[in-house]
């Protein structure tokens, strides 16, 4: 049988209650129960093979790159937990049918419950630890939904939030632990990890890994000091408390302790952390349980205490203790789930959970009382019930350990003390609720519940008795296979018998029973003592803490994100200095030994001009026009540098961009202040100077280090294939329009988008026309000097011809679409400057947005054309033709692509500059659409 269905059926079952929403409540319940019942049947069908020690494994690849496979792994331990989850889940479905009132949305409840069941089954059945974690988080979320089921109650919302915060935080720790674990073991598969125990424990990160792992387990299993979320989660409907918070979810942490027992346990650190946490939880829980007046509160603390007991057992350095731990998981699930359900019945039928008001219920509901008494006796560890057996084993194991050296005797002593409290609170539960006078101030007269609401309790209580009397027969096989999975097959000899003779554990049990009775009789003094202690409202403290945390996070956030661009940049640059500076410091030598080119006079002069003009830009940056002139010199020197170092394409591009940029900034200055006021404090200027120098030093050093190192390049490929594959001899251009054509397409798209963005920014801008320049001089009267106009007009055809020439030769000689486009744009802009917008508009009425779009379309369609020939997008084609008079000419599809580049560049550049230039004219950009 396919074991995946055990997980899949409840998953699909999540939808069933929603689909049956219109049906009657009973039909809804039966429909919901179908999927888990079927899953249970499948599980039971595997009993034979699992008990014989077989591990059923099924695996599908999910995200192999992350090491995440969908793996279902069914062994003894997974079998035991699946059995608990499905069987108790079915009982809970039945119980909830009667527990939920008419006002509660039953489909929603069942759907959440099935979601939780899926998540829980996912944890226990997963064979991949990442997959475990996924379902682990799902239990946190579904538990949040279930606790807050009555979301109109404030305590439900607050309790749910608290549970989610604590278990969710633990989940993150667990994820970190799992990632470390997978890293160390080299696999995320559970089977691989379980075999690598020795390797993992010797790893230097093992302590960190273990602490993170335990944080995940302890938060989920409500171990001290994270136990406080569990009592607050009692705001959930009682079926949820019975299912999640006693039988299953809180055992998920313990399940992981058991699951990873072969891989992680065995070290001193494990035993100390696990046993001491368990012991503390055991004591704290047992002590506090006694004083709870709320029925469910008492059971919640008792659950904490029992979870502590199981944790302690996994922390004792003995295989038998692990067996006892597994056994107590079974027993606790049976008696605690039945107790919770019985408490729910009392609440449901009497309208109160307060033990100060609930008294003498025996006369109203004797059957429920009997059931609850048996279950409570099992919890107290009364002989002939299942709780007694595992408690005996627990006592025996506390006597065997040597954890604390000479002080080891403390552990059995404290265990007995906890058992005394356990007996006392069990006694209180029974005596206070069912006897001890008459009920006080109940809103309704208590009575027995409907027949089928009690059935789940009856089933579990009968199990408590049967296991208590004939343990080996009933759960021997189950316990054997589960425990041997925990111990990786090294199962010790043990016997599940009621009678082991007169021995020390028996004496401890007797002391616990007698002491518990005595303590309950003398409870008044104890209650007085406890009520004198200041009470601790964990919910409020927790919320205060959360508020403080939020406040400090907000403070930190506001400190970092304070709205100052200068600060962001300073922080960013500081980070750059640290991140890029550290590796440089660790390097032995900056130079790489490649011979330097000697400096000649021309280069030295060029460099000097570059440095001086850059320096002048900074010095005069307050006088903006001067700074602009200075930086244009820098740009000029950069383009000359490109010429000197064999990059004519770059020199041409830089030169034409330089012209456009300076015109643009000139125009911009018309709309901006012409001077920068002095505002920075001297200390800030010093800081900025320091930071700028550091960044400059690092970037300079980096480039020196690169340039002096031996040279390997992937460009040989391009050089070798430019002519044969791309049909051009100008390798730079072939790279742009052919090899990396798709990149270029993206780049011209960005150019077009930027131009359109600028056009949009300039529409409906409040016009601001300064009447004079920065020095207070009025603008020149002669707007379009005659000389300039004449020259510009006569240059235009020349410039256009040059740009066409540059465009066509681009494939084989320096040039190409980018450069040609810029030259055309510059020529037209010159026309704008010399003649004015009106003049140009009358002769050339073109919307540049359309030009940009046409250019992009040409480039895009050229790429598409290759599809017609069954080639990948943008595959280029070229061939040579003989034309009369011209001789041989080459036609290449790359030319068409380059034409797209050309048109886009012309359109974008003109759109940017012309839009800005038109700002003071009647042609300025406006919205045409209706607003």
């Amino acid at each position, binding site marked *: 049988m396919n074991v995946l269905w055990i997980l899949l059926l409840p998953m699909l079952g999540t939808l069933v209650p929603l689909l049956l929403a219109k049906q009657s409540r009973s039909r809804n319940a039966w429909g919901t129960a179908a999927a888990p019942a079927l899953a249970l049947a499948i599980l039971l069908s595997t009993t034979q093979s699992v008990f014989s020690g077989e591990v059923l494994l099924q695996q599908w690849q999910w995200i192999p790159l992350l090491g995440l496979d969908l793996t279902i792994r069914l062994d003894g331990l997974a079998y035991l937990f699946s059995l608990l989850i499905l069987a108790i889940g079915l009982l809970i479905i039945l119980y909830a049918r009667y527990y939920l009132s008419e006002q509660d949305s039953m489909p929603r409840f069942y759907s959440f419950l099935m979601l939780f069941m899926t998540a829980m089954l996912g944890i226990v059945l997963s064979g991949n630890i990442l997959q475990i974690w996924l379902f682990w988080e799902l239990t946190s979320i579904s538990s949040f939904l279930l606790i807050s089921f009555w979301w109109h109650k404030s305590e439900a919302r607050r309790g749910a939030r608290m549970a989610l915060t604590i278990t969710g935080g633990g989940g993150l720790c667990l994820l970190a632990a799992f990632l470390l674990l997978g890293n160390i073991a080299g696999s995320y598969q559970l089977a691989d990890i379980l075999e690598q125990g020795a390797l993992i424990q010797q790893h230097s990160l093992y302590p960190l890994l273990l602490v993170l792992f335990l944080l995940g387990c302890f938060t989920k299993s409500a171990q001290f000091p994270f136990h406080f979320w569990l009592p607050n989660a009692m705001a959930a409907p009682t079926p949820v408390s019975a299912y999640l918070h006693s039988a299953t979810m809180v055992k998920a942490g313990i399940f992981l302790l058991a699951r990873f027992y072969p891989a992680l346990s065995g070290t001193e650190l494990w035993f100390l952390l696990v046993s001491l946490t368990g012991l503390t939880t055991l004591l704290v829980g047992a002590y506090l349980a006694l004083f709870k007046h709320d029925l469910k509160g008492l059971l919640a603390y008792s659950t904490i205490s029992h979870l502590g007991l199981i944790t302690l057992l996994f922390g004792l350095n003995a295989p038998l203790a692990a067996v006892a731990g597994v056994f107590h998981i079974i027993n606790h699930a049976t008696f605690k789930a039945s107790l919770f359900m019985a408490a729910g019945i009392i609440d449901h039928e009497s309208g109160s959970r307060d033990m100060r008001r609930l008294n003498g219920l025996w006369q109203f509901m004797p059957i429920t009382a009997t059931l609850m008494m048996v279950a409570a006796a099992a919890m107290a560890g009364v002989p002939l019930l299942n709780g007694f057996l595992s408690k005996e084993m627990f006592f025996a194991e506390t006597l065997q350990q040597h954890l604390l050296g000479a002080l080891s005797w403390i552990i059995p002593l404290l265990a007995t003390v906890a058992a005394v409290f356990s007996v006392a609170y069990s006694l209180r539960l029974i005596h206070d609720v069912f006897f001890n006078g008459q009920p006080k101030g109940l809103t309704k007269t208590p009575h027995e519940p409907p027949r089928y609401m009690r059935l789940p309790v009856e089933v579990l209580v009968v199990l408590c008795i049967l296991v208590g009397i004939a343990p080996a027969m009933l759960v021997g096989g189950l316990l054997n296979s589960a425990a041997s999975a925990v111990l990786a097959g090294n199962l010790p000899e043990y016997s599940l018998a009621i009678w082991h003779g007169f021995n020390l554990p028996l004496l401890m049990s007797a002391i616990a029973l007698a002491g518990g009775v005595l303590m309950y009789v003398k409870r008044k003094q104890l209650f007085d003592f406890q009520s004198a202690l200041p009470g601790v409202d964990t919910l409020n403290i927790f919320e205060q803490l959360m508020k403080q945390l939020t406040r400090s996070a907000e403070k930190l956030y*506001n400190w970092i*994100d304070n709205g*100052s*661009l*200068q600060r962001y*940049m300073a922080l960013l*640059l500081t980070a750059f200095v640290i991140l890029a500076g550290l590796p440089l410091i660790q390097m032995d030598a900056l130079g790489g030994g*490649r011979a330097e080119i000697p400096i000649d006079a021309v280069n*030295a002069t060029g460099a000097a001009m570059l*440095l001086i003009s*850059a*320096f002048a*830009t*900074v010095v005069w*940056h307050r006088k903006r026009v001067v*700074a602009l002139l200075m*930086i244009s010199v*820098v740009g000029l020197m*950069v383009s000359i*540098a490109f010429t000197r170092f064999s*990059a004519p*394409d*770059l020199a041409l*591009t830089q030169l034409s*961009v330089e012209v456009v940029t300076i015109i*643009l*900034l000139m125009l*911009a200055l018309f709309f901006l*202040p012409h001077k*920068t006021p002095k505002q920075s404090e001297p200390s800030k200027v010093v800081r900025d100077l320091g*930071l*700028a120098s550091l960044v*400059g*030093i690092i*970037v*300079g*050093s*980096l480039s020196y280090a690169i*340039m*002096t190192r031996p*040279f390997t*390049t*992937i460009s040989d490929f*391009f*050089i070798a294939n*430019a002519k044969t594959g791309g049909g051009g001899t100008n390798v*730079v251009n072939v*790279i*742009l329009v052919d090899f990396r054509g798709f990149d*270029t397409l993206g780049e011209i798209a*960005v150019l077009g988008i930027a131009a359109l963005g*600028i056009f949009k*920014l*300039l529409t409906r*801008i*409040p016009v601001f026309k300064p009447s004079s320049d920065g020095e207070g001089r009025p603008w020149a009267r002669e707007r379009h000097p005659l000389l300039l106009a004449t020259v510009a007009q006569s240059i235009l055809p020349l410039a256009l011809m040059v740009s066409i020439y540059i465009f066509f030769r681009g494939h*084989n000689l320096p040039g190409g679409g*980018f450069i040609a486009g810029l030259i055309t744009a510059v020529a037209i802009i010159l026309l704008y400057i010399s003649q004015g917008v009106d003049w140009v508009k009358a002769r050339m009425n073109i919307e540049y947005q359309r030009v940009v779009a046409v250019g992009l379309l040409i480039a895009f369609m050229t790429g598409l054309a290759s599809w017609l020939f069954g080639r990948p997008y943008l595959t280029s084609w070229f061939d040579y033709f003989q034309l009369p008079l011209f001789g041989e000419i080459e036609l290449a599809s790359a030319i068409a692509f380059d034409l797209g580049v050309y048109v886009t560049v012309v359109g*974008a550049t003109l759109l*940017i500059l012309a839009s800005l230039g038109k700002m003071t004219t009647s042609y300025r950009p406006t919205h045409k659409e209706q607003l």
Partner: protein
Amino acid sequence: METLFALCIGFLTACGVFLMLRGRTFPVVVGLTMLSYAVNLFIFASGRLNLKGAVVLGTSDNYADPLPQALVLTAIVIGFAMTAFLVILAIRARADLGNDHVDGSMPAPRHAKRERTK
């Protein structure tokens, strides 16, 4: 020559960064332009300096590395688009907000720092 070239790149970077740390929009735009010169030279230099490299096939055996050149060529054009966008943004910000500070508003004096408004 490499030393001088590296010095130029470093100095341009430092000047650009200093201007970018100013509080008004125009010097920031100028700084960004300066920084893009430096970055373009930096990328270009990763192909190593070559005084007599050939750029066209078949003219020599010593080729200048075409790949950084292709990268820088588009970087120059895109850099222009970005500078333009930024400076127009600055104009728009000044028109809408009435000042040309990079944060959109004048910083309050030190002793009366206001809480950040949401």
